[in-house]
């Protein structure tokens, strides 16, 4: 076991899968240089046919990925910032998500989309959005939001091996975080979450970078005698409902923490599922801590106001436990 960073985890997963299957290839803006470090060195090993720099034309190159997938390849399409998915919306949501279904199962779409999401720090509204919540209501897409290096490596490999469109969301706030990973190859199946911290007083369901914030909050709350269980769904589609419901059955109180918005996001979606299937477990209303329904503002104090923090998680848990 050695420690690797989140960015190294992405790089290793990509390398291993590109080596494993010659049908895989990577396309995106400046992927040969790899501005966040995730794709550095890949062009040297795999060449320019399989590591393609695309022009800034998201609809075009995303759609080209869809076409390549249906013609027998396994594309890995990088969208530089999650907000740029909006430029490729038709190809992801009307095409990749629906073509298999509409063709009665004829079309194969073994395509992986990777993107950087969330507030990086004063990147303003068009470079800071979470976006994964939007895809929850587009059936046909799998959604993966890894919370650390170990999960990232295992989940990204699964995503690439999956024969369906899978969207993987990477948060660069986690870029340098380190974790031990096995020397041997490993996969984390999609749809299997993990309890990241056991507790008995309250369940905190956390998504992506919010997992590490929830864990930090849990440490602070422990000093105040509150025992927090942190569960990490890892994938939003498919969702490990069983893990979430088991935890709520144990603690009877639940807070969902997400960087996305309150309306129509991952927190709202999970809350509805818990309300539907776990109502009898609950001692009180389901709480959500998410971004208010405004675009992410540029200026630091306003940006900090909209992004859930360790302290806000502590506050929300304290409100829940009374």
């Amino acid at each position, binding site marked *: 076991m050695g420690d690797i960073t989140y960015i190294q985890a992405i790089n290793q997963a990509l390398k291993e899968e590109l080596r494993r299957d010659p049908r895989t290839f990577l396309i995106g*803006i*400046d992927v040969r*240089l790899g*501005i*966040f*470090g995730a794709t550095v060195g890949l062009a040297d090993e795999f060449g320019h046919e399989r590591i393609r*720099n*695309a*022009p*800034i*034309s998201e*609809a*075009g190159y995303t759609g080209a990925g869809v076409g390549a997938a249906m013609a027998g390849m396994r594309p890995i399409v990088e969208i530089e910032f999650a*907000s*740029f998915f*909006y*430029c490729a919306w038709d190809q992801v949501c009307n095409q990749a998500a629906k073509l298999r279904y509409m063709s009665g199962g004829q079309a194969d779409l073994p395509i992986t989309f990777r993107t950087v999401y969330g507030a990086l*720090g*004063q*990147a*303003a*509204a*068009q*470079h800071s959005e979470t976006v994964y919540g939007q895809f929850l209501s587009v059936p046909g897409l799998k959604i993966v939001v890894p919370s650390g290096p170990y999960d990232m490596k295992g989940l990204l490999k699964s995503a690439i091996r999956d024969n369906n469109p899978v969207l993987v969301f990477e948060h660069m706030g986690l870029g340098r975080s380190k974790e031990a990973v096995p020397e041997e190859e490993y996969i984390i199946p999609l749809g299997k979450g993990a309890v990241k911290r056991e507790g008995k007083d309250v369940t905190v369901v956390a998504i992506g970078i919010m997992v590490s914030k929830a864990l930090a909050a849990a440490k602070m709350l422990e000093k105040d005698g509150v025992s927090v269980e942190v569960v990490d769904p890892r994938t939003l589609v498919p969702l490990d409902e069983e893990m979430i419901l088991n935890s709520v059955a144990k603690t009877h109180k639940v807070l969902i923490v997400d960087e996305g918005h309150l309306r129509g996001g991952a927190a709202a979606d999970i809350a509805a599922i818990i309300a539907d299937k776990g109502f009898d477990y609950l001692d009180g209303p389901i709480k959500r801590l998410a971004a*208010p*329904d*405004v*675009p992410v*503002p*540029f*200026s*630091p*104090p*306003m*940006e*900090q*106001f*909209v992004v859930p923090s360790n302290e806000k998680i502590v506050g929300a848990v304290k409100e829940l436990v009374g």
Partner: protein
Amino acid sequence: MAAEINKDLLLKMYRTMQTVRQTEERLRDLFKEGKVPGFLHVSIGEEATSTGVCAALTDKDYITSTHRGHGHLIAKGGNLKPLVAEIFGKRTGYCKGKGGSMHIADFSIGMLGANGIVGAGLPIATGAAMAAKIRGSGEVAVCFFGDGASNEGTFHESLNLAGIWKLPVVYVCENNLYGEFSSGKDVTAVRDIADRARGHDMPGVIINGNDVVEVYETTVQAVERARRGEGPTLLECKTYRWEGHVVGEEAFLGKDAYRSKEEVDDWKLRCPIVSFEKRFLANNMFTQTEFDTIKAEIKREIDEAVAFAIESPMPDPEEALEDMFAAA
């Protein structure tokens, strides 16, 4: 040619280019000192394009801009204090700290915003032109966009719309040979973006983007054509950005990662400001003293703008919830 442009206008354009240059240099330096939040895209080297184009426009005319918009704002007549304050994220900024560098805007002078999405300004400028046409009010819209943006679908859709409806829009491509960190050679199928005008049935003109007089005169012709109701024009300004895509990119890419030092140095020899000074000193139109006086005035203005920005308050956190919807 230059004789027809009056001396006042020439000096005004010099002042604008110097303001853009010095402001961008100061912002770059402040960024490197860690005083500017987020990312910064500066237009050092491209001053003649923003200046020459905007000199052909009135306050009522519209422009859309890119992620590299400080020069466009200044050239259109924007003020340094709210510009710098916005870049610092202060409440006194143009956008009350909501947008920052990439979203700088001054709607009161028709500057419809810098934009973080490559290619987004093309349909927007086209729409502003459409509004002018519907109203019959005579404004022209100018779209600033890069060579990278000309590969976006929105470029083709916009030019087609402007063509079919003969919209009063001038599309100004600032071709600085790179889109982010990729050379145009690798991502753009044509060498001259102006060639794409033919595919959309409008004139396509290549200009030395570092010659402010040439930029100005060509834009005047395109603007007059638009105002006469004859439709759009595509102007391609060949130019270069000295600083790279974002300030500080060497830190994560390494030095000379995608552009050679020789290429950068070669373009620096074609500085739009130095060439202007040489030309108009040689023909005795202006004196070095006149130039130096202007430079000193601008330095003071920038000092004041930076002091204003530093002294201005940050927004209150809850201001994040404001400016969502207009009154119904």
